């Protein structure tokens, strides 16, 4: 048995913030239905590379694939009110959980807001994930996670003190909210089981993201200190950074927090004479001469592969790691050991690496087990078998373009 077997989830959702929450639930066995339409497919299908072989196509998006394995995909053109609205309500009534990440107000405009849906399904759990929250003066502002990561202060902390802020790849903050969204839904499911009560969850990606920065927020409030980017420096550690290794754009990282670790690093480097110089004798001295120290450590690492450095330093009790590239991840020995990637065959994409949850539950198995669905692939299965529409009803809705 899977941990979430039997839980029914419906997504009026697109892109990452809603659907990846659903993916995490699907990976544990929940039945998750992703709703889109030919009139308006998920934006990841239409606007975001990569597409297999760089050929654009609704069923060729790697990003959509990553976010939607193990789901059913149905089409429902919500513009076709009132029939589409009625059908959406029937789907909501069938479900335990509704996930939506439209801009705030959209579900209400569609007649599918929580207050309406709970009249049909009193113990409904509904997650509304949005940029800035469902209420407040900026609630309706449309936004993408890649930029919200700046409003929340993350990019201010990346780069060199004298230079421009730098990118976090992709919609960083969306995936922070994804973790909180999954937490919120599962906690609400447990609560519903004990109390019979549903729940509407208003998750602002902005507010979720700020949870990762609490100490520097406190540091400003209490001490007036404004945190700013400082490359790879860490006030508690020296050396602390990335160092070049043999090979093209190959790097390792090393961090040394204590005197013991410093002596171990020196030993692993073969105790070169410069390490005995008085200016490097204390943490304070090493901090004051950190640029030079970094160059010397980099001179030592350069002739070796990153793996050689890491094995030697880890063996000596010093923290070190390879900087994995995107091309290294599918063969990383540790991730491979955990079965982190599951290769699944897709009719248009071919073989693709789908992603396991980052946690392994010892007794309940997890997905991915099924590739992401094609647009509308499960219309018949879902509408006829799971929702129980008669053949006549179904055919009419298709003919009318409600199910497009």
């Amino acid at each position, binding site marked *: 048995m899977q941990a979430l077997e039997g839980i029914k989830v419906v997504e009026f959702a697109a892109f990452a913030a809603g659907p990846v929450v659903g993916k995490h639930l699907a990976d544990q066995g929940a039945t998750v239905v992703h709703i889109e339409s030919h009139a308006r497919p998920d934006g990841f299908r239409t606007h975001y590379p990569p597409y297999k072989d760089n050929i654009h196509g609704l069923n060729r998006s790697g990003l959509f694939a990553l976010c939607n394995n193990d789901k059913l995909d149905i089409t429902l053109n919500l513009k076709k009110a009132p029939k589409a609205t009625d059908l959406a309500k029937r789907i909501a009534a069938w479900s335990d959980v509704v996930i939506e990440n439209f801009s705030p107000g959209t579900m209400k405009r569609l007649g599918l807001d929580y207050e309406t849906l709970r009249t049909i399904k009193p113990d409904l759990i509904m997650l509304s994930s949005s940029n800035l929250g469902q209420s407040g003066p900026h609630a309706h502002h449309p936004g993408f996670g890649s930029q919200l990561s700046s409003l929340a202060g993350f990019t201010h902390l990346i780069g060199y003190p004298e230079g421009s802020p730098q990118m976090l790849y992709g919609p960083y903050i969306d995936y922070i909210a994804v973790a909180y969204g999954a937490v919120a839904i599962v906690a609400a499911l*447990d609560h519903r089981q004990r109390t019979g009560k549903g729940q509407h969850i208003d998750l602002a990606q902005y507010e979720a993201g700020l949870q990762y920065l609490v100490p520097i927020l406190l540091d400003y409030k209490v001490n007036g200190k404004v945190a700013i980017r400082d490359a790879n420096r860490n*006030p508690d550690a020296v050396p602390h950074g990335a160092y070049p290794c043999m090979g093209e754009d190959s790097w390792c*990282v090393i961090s040394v927090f204590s005197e013991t670790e410093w002596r171990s690093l020196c030993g692993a480097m073969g105790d070169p004479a410069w390490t005995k110089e008085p200016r490097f004798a204390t943490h304070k001295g090493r901090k004051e001469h950190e640029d030079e120290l970094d160059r010397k450590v980099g001179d030592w690492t350069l002739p070796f592969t990153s793996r050689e450095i890491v094995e030697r330093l880890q063996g000596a009790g010093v923290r070190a790691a390879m900087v994995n590239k995107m*091309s290294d991840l599918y063969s990383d020995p540790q991730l491979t050991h955990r079965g982190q990637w599951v290769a699944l065959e897709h009719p248009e994409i071919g073989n693709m690496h789908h992603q396991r949850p*980052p946690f392994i539950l010892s007794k309940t198995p997890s997905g991915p087990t099924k590739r992401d669905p094609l647009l509308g692939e499960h219309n018949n299965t879902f509408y006829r078998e799971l929702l129980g529409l008669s053949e006549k009803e179904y055919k009419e809705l298709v003919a009318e373009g409600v199910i497009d």
Partner: protein
Amino acid sequence: MPDQEKRAGLLSPFRVLDLTDELGFLCGKILGDLGADVIKIERPGGDAARGIGPFFHGRPDPEKSLYWFGFNNNKRGVTLNLESPRGRELFSRLAGGADFLIESFVPGYLDGLDLGYAALSRKNPRLVHTSITAFGQTGPYSRFLASDIEILAMSGCMSLTGDPERPPLRASFPQSYHWTGSYAAAGTLMAHLHRQRSGEGQQVDVSAQACLLWAFSHAHVFWDLNRHLEKRAGSFMTGRSITGAKMRVFWPCKDGYLNFIIYGGEAGRRTNQALVEWMDSKGTAPEFLKNKEWKTFNIAAVTQEEIDQMEEPIARFFEQVTKKEFLEQVIQREMLGYPVAAVQEIFDNPQLEARQFWQSLEHPELGTSIVYPGGFAKFSDAPCRIWRRAPLIGEHNEEIYCGELGLKKGELAELKREGVI
């Protein structure tokens, strides 16, 4: 009043034992935000992570770490030496009545004390035992030592951050620990729901390296599908156009930087149009931008030359704009884009204020109260918030050991002398 409210929290019937270091702090805090009774168990003298700065008024002190305050509120605290026989016995008793145990010890450490999942679940088969480590409980790197930067490196994150010709970078405030703690909370609750439905507890093996794979979204999929390697691109965004064109993300403005990207799609078209209108209202929109046919503008096929030509006048325009003005205009004009906020601007944000995001907690021993970010979400029929400040060292020893386990005060003093608590 707060305690009454707490009883209404989603997880209020449940007891959590939290033996994590900084790698797992957020996991227990999240359960606490939802109302669970979280007991932080520290070694006698206090957790080493109390030495992580910043500190209240800048003075290093185990009772003044703002890092500790931030990630250990909503927890009570006791001290306990797990390596003493008496300590192990007390721990077994606590674990026998707990719903959750969260720990981040080196794999095998608790088993060595006969306090691992195998031993604890014999007495308490319903227990959900979450083990949080950098790389996981087993495997070739499971014994590797790692702090934030090593986790970010091994996950692949760092290969995507930094200037192309300079070293890979991390964020200058640890991020990996919080990714790990929050995803650990998700896994923990999934195991919990299963336990509530089946009666069966289990162990949750969390890998920080694996948690961080989500921090860079789909960058690896470019390699998977097309053998294209996504790399660090400094202040630019790549991967949006099949021509390989990169778009500027950060633009100097009057008092800092703005995040603005020339996007495609419906939202991108609206934004580009709105920006040109804004520029035009100041008389700075060049003719070619005003005449641009946004309806047919295709970001996925755009060339670098076309992007460079568009970005040049936009850069000059943004140099005359302040961060505050930019935020007001993007809201008013419904454009995509935000200023790059520094902390003070986060506290000044009107949206957070209107949603009553900030919460004040009393710290009587510091003679003050401190403003914290509040709950991570708003629930219609349950509270999610900060109930109590982080515990002092051993603050709840008497409450838990005497009040709940029935020890006499004399015994408590003896345990203290023996270094058990």
